[in-house]
């Protein structure tokens, strides 16, 4: 299963599952990140650090730990 960590820069992906505890799940939901959303992985920082996502027209940064808990599939 692919997570946000295994995605190349510039690819569009669909969020399939958010694992991890309630806190991280709710935090992502509050920021408008939901299962089924299509997001673009804009870039990845140094040493596989945080990733920058574009979702519905705004940007969200996710640390490596969080990104590894979001399962996705590539679209297009």
């Amino acid at each position, binding site marked *: 299963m692919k997570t946000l960590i295994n995605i190349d820069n510039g690819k569009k992906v669909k969020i399939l599952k958010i694992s991890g505890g309630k806190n991280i799940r*709710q935090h992502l939901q*509050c920021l408008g990140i*939901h299962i089924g959303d299509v997001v673009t992985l804009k*870039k990845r920082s140094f040493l596989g650090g945080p990733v920058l996502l574009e979702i519905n*027209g*705004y940007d969200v*940064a996710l*640390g*490596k730990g969080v990104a590894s808990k979001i399962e996705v599939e590539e679209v297009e």
Partner: protein
Amino acid sequence: MKIAFIGQPNAGKSTLFNSIAGYKTVTANFPGQTVHYTVSKVTVANETFEIVDLPGIYSLTAIDKAELESRKFILSGQANVIINVIDASTLSRSLELTLQLAELQVPMVICLNMIDEAKRKGIDINVEKLSNIFGIPVIETIANKGIGLDRIFTSAKEAFYKNLIPKIQYFHKDIEERIHEIEKILPAEFTSKIPKRYTAVKLLEGDTELFKEIDRYPEVLNKINEIREEIKISHGRHTDTVISSERHALTMNIFEEVAKVVEPNKTLREKIDDLLTNKYLGYPLLFFILFGIFFIVFEIGKFIEEPLINKFDSLIQQLPEYVTEDSFMFFILKGLLEGFSGGLGVAIPYLIPFFIGLTILEDIGYLPRMAFLMDTVMHRIGLHGKSILPFIISYGCNVPGVMATRILESPRDRFITAALSVFVPCAARTTIILGLIGAYIGGFAAAGLYIFNLFVIMIIGTIFTKFIPEITPGLIMEIPPLRIPTFKNVFMKTWLRLKDFMIVAWPLLVISSIILSLLEYLNLDLFLNKLFSPIVSWILGLPEQTGITLLFGILRKELSMIMLFQAMDTTNLNTVMTKIQLITFTIFTIFYIPCVGTMGALIREVGTKKTILITALSIAIAIILSIIVRFIFSILYNS
């Protein structure tokens, strides 16, 4: 009439608030900048409005401490009208909060702010349709340019007098049935003040705070858990995810109905943004930006400070011509002049350029980009990227730095970040570093001291992480678009921050200076110095007179240096202190004890016990580091 401004972080609430209330809150292009709420009274057309600026919240599910405060205020029912401020360029997500606010059933106005930014992103919003969907007034504003602000009060009045309560947007039928089931069994105390629906939905979502309260009614709790479990089985997802998805679907529908989106061109802004967060180039840019600011502050400061201080010095020298030397009046005047010039020498030359620099960085939106860049590094000391904000603010002043730790989610992160923040040399300590090390030893030595300081902070952070392991999943943060700072906002924010220094710190400086002068007059300073001499002379190897300056430094750090000039009776310290003594003194003052103001902020944020712990730790670290430095430099200079 009490009006509360509520909206998601970075929607421009504070800017809006400031433009109508006069400048009272500090705004920034960083999510969660408003860490405490500000109340102000405004009179428009013979009617007085009380307006409240609340910390931004993404949702009524509170994630961090600042959000919890907002939520508590909203639920307290104090507001007669809610103004839901929305960043129009992120309309679809922002509406998720609007749906939740609607459940509170309070007269409301939707304020679509930053309409210009939405247009730039190619989003065109039909205001009338949106107004019809919720049945409440919808206004468009561009707060930083002052456009549309006049309509805020008229529409708030309209909503209040016509009792325009937002229409609830309903979920799918099966979920609505479940909500209804919970509404029916809710104990009376939960429904008397707050609408049933709000409580029922929040309970379905498994809200931690509400669950603590409902704990007293085991049958109700059991039933709710049963319903949650059933939904989880029938939908195959956690109930909170189900509700959140329902809300998401509703907002997407509303968004499609009211907004037209065209693909925007890649703008210059985005290209700059791309560069600032570039994997490789981002780091040298970060270094140059920060280094540039400190360099400019230092150069401008030096340029202005010298003539300014010289003027006052000559005035003090001439003092015996007007008042009898060594009389009571003479010491009072001397203390007054020295305190006044000390404050002037700090505030005008160094603080103003520093505050301007910090404000511009904030308003552009560079700080969250720094958090993105530094995330990996911060994980090394067991924190994540967001912690960089309190650190950077602490370079200005530790007090707002410590307060900014509220944007962090876990108590552990808040504690470690607050504890490390107090070691960051604030503007006051910067003047000491520049005034003692920069002036007598050299600019490179001063820069070296900053790097040494960073190094020590990283080591302390690593040690903390050893004892309190990292449990947080890491960085989850919105990166707002780059914005062009407006001159007015930069000016007003700098003034606001400077005013703080002038009305609180400066008088304190003058008074302390007079007290010290009087102590000298009464020969009490010698007694106090004797008292501290074991630490000052034996351990630190400093002149005995410096003891009293360190005591005053607890009030305000820069007092240590200003008092040092006083205590040593000269502004040419290199004639009375060796380089080793200057270095030891500076290092000790950087680390030893947070100032009174910072301690106050610490007590508020992490509690008294932890504040005492941090204070004790800082004294221990200061002594250890001073001994090491003294020892190493003694060997270096003697060989």
